[in-house]
């Protein structure tokens, strides 16, 4: 029988996170304040985050040790398995070797606990008793609630009210882990009270939930706030995924020609590819291809440009160098909610600008078609976001079929889609529509980006 799973022993689990900032050919551009035009400093973020995380945000140390206490918690589900998708390969009749690292097997169902656990630990170490956060659909709230339980920290989750009412099972899961979950807007904060006064039946929004969680954290000395995407330290914690995969690929006597993953905030795919890209930067593997996949409907990187962009029309908000479609861009709807960011992690934008990674866009019906093919061959019902990876991986495997090449393809699979079955239902019943943002509208949006 041919081997399809590669297990890493827990004693061989990586002991350090990898920090790409040590190996960047050029450092990350600074985050600028709009008035002073000077870089924002760590003290600006101190009311929300423990100093250890703020240090990691700007660190240029190549390896950062994973604390023993964090590794002990990781060991409740890590290392995750590296799979060889032999049944998919057979269905495609391709000579390509397809591997996927699956992060959907932990208690909360996605890659998010990799950083939630670390953030809970550092807060605990700094004497913090409570952590607040916001959640929309509930994935991040679940990951943090579980992590706080592991470190005996009180967790308060401001859950967008409409989700709170529509997704009772997510709420119950968070409460089972010990979190206090309140519908946002809540009477617990000034921001929530003001909204409830104006609109008692307000169903909430993510923006309001974030405001409530931050206000709560700032108003108490024993409380911090936690964020599950975009920031450098979040990407750092996710590199446990890629470091494990390197060891497992060695077990398979393989090295990827192509690594594929979806990008939204960027933390999932960065966790897989950052540990590999150092081989490309060093010149050891110059031909390694790293393909980020984004929705054709929201082409932040495939059709965006790299520039400073004002965050508001008055130009008073801070400036950040990132890929953008300009501040008038309004993306159309897609089912992969996590991919709908105006911009994404600055590290990913920087690597793209340096020509070290490439980006492709995929239409959502083709994305779900790939997800269904994967479900019917490998069995996993994939979340809408990682279905993007599958689409491009299948395309690359079919190119191998045409050329006769036996390339090795590695997929960063971030989790299952058990809470997104309605999206599959829409696809299977023919209700999903493809929509590409018109070139003319993109040009119009780009024209409004300020020249700096």
């Amino acid at each position, binding site marked *: 029988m041919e081997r399809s799973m590669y297990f890493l022993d827990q004693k061989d689990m990586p002991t350090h996170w990898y920090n790409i900032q040590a190996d960047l050919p050029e450092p990350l551009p600074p985050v600028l304040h709009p008035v002073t035009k000077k870089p*924002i400093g760590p003290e*600006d973020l101190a009311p929300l985050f423990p100093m250890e995380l703020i240090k990691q945000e700007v660190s240029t140390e190549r390896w950062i040790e994973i604390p023993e206490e964090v590794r002990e918690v990781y060991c409740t589900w890590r290392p995750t398995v590296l799979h060889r998708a032999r049944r998919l390969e057979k269905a495609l009749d391709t000579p390509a070797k397809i591997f996927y690292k699956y992060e959907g097997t932990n208690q909360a169902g996605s890659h998010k606990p990799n950083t939630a656990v670390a953030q809970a630990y550092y807060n605990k170490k700094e004497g913090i008793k409570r952590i607040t956060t916001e959640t929309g659909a509930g994935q991040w709230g679940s990951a943090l609630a579980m992590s706080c339980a592991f470190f005996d920290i009180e967790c308060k989750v401001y859950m967008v009210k409409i989700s709170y009412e529509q997704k009772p099972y997510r709420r119950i899961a968070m409460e089972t882990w010990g979190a206090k979950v309140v519908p946002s807007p809540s009477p617990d904060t000034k921001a929530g009270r003001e909204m409830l006064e104006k609109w008692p039946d307000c169903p909430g*929004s993510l923006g309001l939930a974030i*405001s409530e969680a*931050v206000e709560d954290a700032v108003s108490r000395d024993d409380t911090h706030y936690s964020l599950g995407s975009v920031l450098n330290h979040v990407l750092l914690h996710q590199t446990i995924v890629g470091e494990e995969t390197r060891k497992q690929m060695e077990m398979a006597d393989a090295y990827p020609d192509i690594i594929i993953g979806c990008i939204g905030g960027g933390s999932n795919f960065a966790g897989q590819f950052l540990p590999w890209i150092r081989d490309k930067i060093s010149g050891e593997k110059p031909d390694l291809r790293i393909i980020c996949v984004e929705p054709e409907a929201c082409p932040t990187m495939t059709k965006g440009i790299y520039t400073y962009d004002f965050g*508001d029309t008055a130009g008073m908000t801070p400036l950040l160098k990132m890929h953008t479609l300009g501040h008038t861009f*309004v993306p159309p709807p897609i089912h992969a909610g996590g991919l709908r960011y105006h911009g994404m992690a600055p590290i990913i934008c920087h690597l793209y600008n340096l020509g070290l990674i490439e980006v492709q866009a995929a239409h959502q019906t083709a994305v779900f078609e790939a997800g269904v093919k994967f479900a019917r061959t490998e069995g996993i019902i994939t979340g809408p976001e990682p279905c993007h990876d599958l689409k491009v991986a299948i395309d690359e495997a079919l190119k191998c079929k045409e050329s006769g090449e036996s390339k090795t393809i590695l997929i960063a699979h971030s989790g299952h889609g058990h809470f997104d079955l*309605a999206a599959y239902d829409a696809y299977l019943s023919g209700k999903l529509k493809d929509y590409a943002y018109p070139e003319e509208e993109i040009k119009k949006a780009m024209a409004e980006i300020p020249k700096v």
Partner: protein
Amino acid sequence: MIEQYDDKTIRCPRVGGEVNFRFCRLENNMLPCRFIVGCWRMYLDINKFLQDHYSEEELNRVFTPPKPKVESLVDLIEKAKKAKQQDD
């Protein structure tokens, strides 16, 4: 009238569930969600709806994109500090 589409429903990828149009037109502090054009343009004349019911100033506020994460957090910290000072 502004309620004309309120009963129409769509799946909101931001909150991960089904919402009605009323939610979308009020989601952003009583103004429309900044994604409303993209989400509804295939189902109704959303641009006409917005022009009919909102001022240019309101639409400018609606389509101001989210700030980059670090900066928006710094802004929220300052707002929360001010709120706390007022309470004290």
